[in-house]
């Protein structure tokens, strides 16, 4: 990893701050990022924008996660639209897509890539 690449990753919290099978929200600069911790999945942690573009509120970290047709999703707690954890695409309206953040675990630290 080059120095440049390393500096782009920011530790936002520790593994113990996450909720297994659910979401929490982290602040990355001024951006709200929803972090979903799914210990059984390949990636373990998924990061999406916290803003629900349909309900227009910062709530996605408080949605229920699951899968629809094998695709990992979070359901908005407001109006229940599903957003793919991997692509950010809204399953009910593919024209809507929310930002996805690069995220990884380094030991017990949770790192987000500074966009």
């Amino acid at each position, binding site marked *: 990893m080059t120095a440049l690449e390393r500096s782009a990753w920011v530790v936002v919290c520790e593994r113990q701050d996450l909720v297994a099978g659910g979401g929490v929200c982290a602040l990355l600069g001024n951006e709200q990022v929803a972090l979903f911790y799914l210990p059984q999945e390949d990636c373990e942690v998924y990061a999406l924008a916290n803003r629900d573009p349909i309900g227009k509120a910062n709530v996605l970290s408080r949605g229920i996660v699951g899968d629809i047709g094998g695709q990992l999703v979070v*359901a908005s*707690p407001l109006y229940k639209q599903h957003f793919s954890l991997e692509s950010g695409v809204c399953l009910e*309206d593919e024209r809507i897509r929310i930002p996805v953040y690069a995220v990884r675990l380094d030991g017990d630290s949770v790192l987000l890539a500074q966009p």
Partner: protein
Amino acid sequence: MATRRIVVVGNGMVGHHFLDTLVGAKTGDLITVIGEEPRPAYDRVHLSEVFSGRSPEELAMGSRKMYSDWGVEAHFGDPVVRIERAAKRVVTGSGRTFAYDRLVLATGSYPFVPPVPGADNERCLTYRTIDDLGAIKAAAKGSSIGVVVGGGLLGLECANALQNLGLETHVVEFAPGLMGVQLDDGGSSMLRSKIEALGVRVHTGMNTQAITGGSACALQMEFADGTRLDTDMIVFSAGIRPQDALARDAELAVGERGGIVIDYKCKTSDSDIFAIGECALFGGRIYGLVAPGYRMAEVVAGQLAGEAVTFQGADMSTKLKLLGVDVGSIGDAHCRTEGALSYVYSDGREACYKKLVTSADSSRLLGAVLVGDCSDYDTLLQYFLNDMALPADPQALILPASGDRPQLGVAALPATATICSCHNVTKGDVVACIDAGSVSLADVKSTTRASTGCGGCSAMLKNLFDDELTARGVTVDRSLCEHFSHTRQELYHLVMLGEIHSFEELLQKHGRGRGCEICKPAVASILAALWNDHVLDRRHVGLQDTNDNFLANMQKDGTYSVVPRVAGGEITPAKLSVLGAVASKYQLYTKITGGQRIDLFGARLEQLPAIWQELIDAGFETGHAYGKALRTVKSCVGSTWCRYGVQDSVGMAIRLENRYKGLRAPHKIKSGVSGCTRECAEAQSKDFGVIATENGWNLYVGGNGGMKPRHADLFAADLDDDTLIRYIDRFLMFYIRTADRLQRTSVWLDNLEGGIGYLRAVVIDDSLGLAAELEQQMAHIIGTYACEWRATLADPDKLKRFRQFVNSDESDSGVVFIQEREQIRPARPEERLRLVAVSE
């Protein structure tokens, strides 16, 4: 006889389907496939989904491992460059040779790039392969404007891709309208206005003359009418041309405008060589859809297996979603058949356009165009494909739904009707599959392959499946969701009998996948009703709806409302003052609810624990307004004060509310107790209602206000206190055990076989011998009650979750309030913009 050697040139979708079919036929042939692209076959139809997040790997259809398991020798990235017919072998670019007894050409097509000067610029791309996508993505990075040349099906898909990449997107079409092959003028202009509304700029009737380097952008397009268009990149998607160079060089017959000529056996002019898919010309026509290509593949594989099968041409009807717009085209969309009549329905407000083309006597459907609403496509296609007689007023088929609209039920379809055109599955095939013992839709899909291609027939297949099962007297699937093929009631029994204590365990034993927002809360509710663990236990946290998760009710802006329990609506002045003080301190909006309590709105997530600490210190407890649980027992003031009251309704209401508080159920439960027959507490609109009589209490059940009001039924009369409570215990537990997810008692009772009489038998006469068990279970729930907020405040681990950010103490800046009638309310979007502008 030596083993036959079959060589397949091309590993696209059709080539792959051919291998799949031939291997399945177990002919014992030695099969070799040689693909030009560096990777095995993938789903080209859904290529554009890569731009909306699907990974290229997900599109894969074949793999090296799959082919090796099949015993197929596969070579990729080394294309065949020559067919030596005399020697019966093919030669690849690297000089390898492969001898064949039968050769199958599945070379597909290539994108047509008009011969315009400058079209060879490196920022001019095409759109057909995964590698093309990579090039488009790379070019888009440094671009702000993108042009797609071609307004056909592929061109619009590509425009969608460019939009997804964030470019200002233009579509340039030579013809006067979009999708001229599939749509008539009316449909085409409706499609145009719809996609223009999505921000795509459409230029039709444009003849590109030259592409030059631009000053404002990287490129500039010049058109025959003298106009110009600046752009940073161009993608050509102006149609396809059959990839017939190998055949041409080998002097096989090819069409005037390209395409390897084949007969109805898919044989080329050399009887040992077949051609299938988009490289083949049948009856003077190239079939540029995947379904006809699959048909050809099956015809060739069938012949090699010794069957007498032929290709008879294929229906080119199509239904798709372009840029989110539904578009359908069937048969003679342009009304070109002699004497044909057309019926047109166009709705500017809803932006949909529908046209029927019928025979001169209006008895048969010849074609149709649908834009903006494809809900009629399946029905119309069946009329068309099966040559079925149309109803007397065919226009009714496309007019907005009305009561007397003719319905084409799946039962009316002939056995020969095609259900799935991708895999050519008829209604007869599906019926035969069910006759052979398939009892699940998944079974039928995997056996017949219906609905595993484009998926467009999935709704019709499900209808047919349900219809057939019903006709056979089999109960139709009432699965909770895709993860559990059980009803809520069945899950309840599985949890109870299996003593299951977690969602994961239930999913592992009786479900599949990972769960969703439907099954998780439903199971959480069952677990709570049976075992009464704290809803915020670590293993249950992820199962709860946000309201249960944070023990408060989420409002539209992401803040919460707080409702402490005020049992029976009775509250002391001191406690009332506390509510006022807390609301003032945290600046909460305050409103009296219909259930005789006080709702405090506008609490931020991180404020909830402090607010509740104050409430609990003052003697309040949680009101479960957030849960599918008992809410309130409303009361009138009763005999204590009222001149007419005959019993102490407030006392009974408080007793009932405290007894059942926290009881988790399939839906919320409301109750009321009235002190006399004047019914001031509106008990007959409640799930269970109690009305005082001279001799005791009358019990009513199954009432509801709200969306579908229902008057409660009188269940039993003149009960003493203890009997009343015993009956309510049994009634509630029986409801919790047997109701569907989100089914209120009113609907449950309406659907209960035997109705109120049966319910009386179970609850009063104990006809099922369940009464003791139901009471025992209720006693367990009551005995283990704990205020969820009190427990949460005592547990630092649970409290940790009540913060907006894991890494900051800041509040959500998206929450903005303004004042109205001396209280706060959420700012509306336009107010929010103004506020932000002022504060900056």
